[in-house]
């Protein structure tokens, strides 16, 4: 009886996993399905995952929409730049937060928590005025800085958790072996932090890639629009929505993000294997 139960465990795990994957993947499948359906079928009571008639025109209409490709490039630039900046700042800062005790840590953690309290709508006007004073409204640089600022607190919070999980004895061992603090950081701490850095980078990238409100308010020129702004133009007044082209545009828009994730995912799992503690 016990043997049978043990034999059932693995299939049950696979069934649970399959169910979870379907749960996660179904919205994407539905998006793909909607992207190749005609508006008539999308407004029909008959619901099928596979379209009755493949309507590829949604893709040509989405691509013909002003600036979809350009706004994808803008989103990629802003997301990559803000991710790089976030990691550059968060990596050393998180180490300080995790390792040092006292007032600096308390102030840092306090700042992180307080910064998450304010609704975006409260800060947007002062932020707009500041950026306008320094000439950075309607620019990708300004948006990159805003995304960096907005993502940084949570990224710091994430990374300091990873740093705290690295036994301090490892650093002490490195020091005993003659390594300076810089060497210990470079050769011990940072490699072990790779999974955390990748996870934080992914979070930062997604936050920036999907961000709508700051981009909506700060960007004024179509040539600077990011993807969420361009996609929002598929939603019209009077409740009109071009569902098919919107779905097609969303599928096209997801491609760079999927590529980024597939690359980073390898690093994420690779990083987990690196820097193992021995003994």
């Amino acid at each position, binding site marked *: 009886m016990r043997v049978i139960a043990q034999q059932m465990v693995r299939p049950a795990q696979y069934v649970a996993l399959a169910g979870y994957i379907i749960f996660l993947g179904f919205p994407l499948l539905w998006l793909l399905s909607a992207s190749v359906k005609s*508006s008539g079928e999308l407004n029909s*009571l008959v619901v099928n995952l596979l379209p009755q008639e493949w309507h590829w025109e949604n893709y040509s209409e989405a691509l013909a929409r002003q600036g979809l490709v350009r706004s994808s490039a803008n989103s990629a630039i802003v997301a990559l730049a803000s991710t790089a900046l976030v990691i550059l700042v968060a990596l050393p800062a998180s180490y300080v937060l995790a390792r040092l005790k006292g007032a600096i840590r308390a102030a840092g953690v306090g700042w992180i928590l307080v910064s998450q309290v304010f609704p975006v709508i409260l800060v947007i006007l002062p932020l707009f005025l500041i950026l306008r004073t320094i000439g950075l409204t*309607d620019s990708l640089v300004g948006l990159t800085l805003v995304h960096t600022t907005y993502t940084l607190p949570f990224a710091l919070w994430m990374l300091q958790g990873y740093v705290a999980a690295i036994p301090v004895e490892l650093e002490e*061992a490195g020091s005993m072996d003659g390594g300076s603090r810089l060497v210990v950081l470079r050769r011990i701490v*940072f490699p072990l932090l790779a999974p955390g850095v990748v996870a934080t980078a992914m979070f930062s990238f997604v936050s920036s890639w999907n961000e709508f409100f700051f981009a909506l308010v700060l960007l004024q020129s179509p040539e600077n629009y990011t993807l969420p702004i361009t996609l929002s133009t598929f939603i019209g007044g*009077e*409740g009109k929505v*071009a569902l098919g082209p919107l779905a097609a545009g969303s599928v096209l828009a997801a491609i760079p993000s999927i590529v980024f994730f597939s690359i980073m995912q390898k690093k994420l799992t690779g990083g987990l294997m690196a820097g193992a503690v021995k003994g």
Partner: protein
Amino acid sequence: MTSPHGHTSTTYPKGRPMKSRGVFIAACLTTTTLLLAACGSGDAGDDGPVTLKFQALSDQPAAIAATESIVEDWNTANPDVQVEIVPAGWDGVYDKLITQFNGGAAPDIIHYEAASIVSFARDGYLADLTDLMSDERRADIPEGVLDSVTVDDQVIAYPTELQSYVVFANRTLLEDAGVEIPTGETMTWDELREIAKATTKGDVYGLGWGLSSPTAAFMALAPGFGGTYITGTGEDADLTVGEGEMALPELVHGMAYDDKSILPVTLTQSGSEAIASFYAGQTAMTVQGSYQAANIAKDAPEDLDWVALPPLAGPEGPQQAANPQTLSVNIDSEHVEESAEFIEFFTQTEHLAALNEADALIPATTSAQEALTEKLGDENGWSTILASGQNFTAAPYLFADSYAQWKDTVATPAYQRYLAQETDETELADQLTSGWDEITQ
């Protein structure tokens, strides 16, 4: 492995520093490229023609093309005053405009809707166009529509496009039920109710009406019953809920629960969602925004024989409250007069006709309505829809400061509860008025 000294030894990942350095350099290059790209863009200088920024919200490809064509014609004819289209989406545009106005970065010409620009006008962000609008244009705009863009005796926008509520019917289902298709200039609500009852048979309901957010429809159609809801303007506006205001909600309630002639699920759907049951033959009629005529023509099953019924008329007539799309001018624009001249050009008969044809909406000027009627005839119910263009009347609720808050926090939930049979007529009226009092006190 533990060293003789008791320390834990560590494996140094080979090559890792090189990779980290590479990532760092890549990050720096990205940032530098971004900075250089930003430095490369910018204004060419103050010389040259005046450039007006026109923030346009057109979302339909045909409407975008029509707008671009009008702007191109203007730019060709006016080399010294060039107009640059800044496309924007409807989603979040109110927040965008608030920030733009407060930050002094609003475009010269602003496309939006009457219901939303009144507060901007009251706050002093929109130019007074009263003296800049030509007599010809003023005479061409129906009085009720012009009233909807007049704040404190100042014309603060040119109206361009409107939608009305229209009944679309499945001709086959009506004829099968022995109903004669109404063809007069108007159709009464009582007629609609009778037709809905007559066509409710088996699995078919007489009417589908997407009323998940019912306030806009009830407010827009109330004038036909003598309902005004609002008296006064601005902070002094007051709410009245009497017979005229309650007539339509009570009618819908009666059709849904006494006659059982409204497909219940549609009361919880949007207009676009409710149209699916019309396509499927589950409802014989559906009340929709007039722009849906174009979608029905495109999306309905080939065997669906449909028709747009005459405008609905209450005891007071076929009036519907006007909430047109509008073009306004930023009061801080350095080129208010040039902007108004462009809008005059934009609202010429042939331009408004082309734009509204593309958007499947009703032109805000009589001449453009006539031009479109002449061009399209009775195709896809256009003649019926365009005829309703003369029935627009002023919407007092546009000018009440507290309307938007009352609509979202009081009216819509109260109407939803009523249509779900959680409250009765008396409770609905009480909730509407006490909610208004709470907001305005």
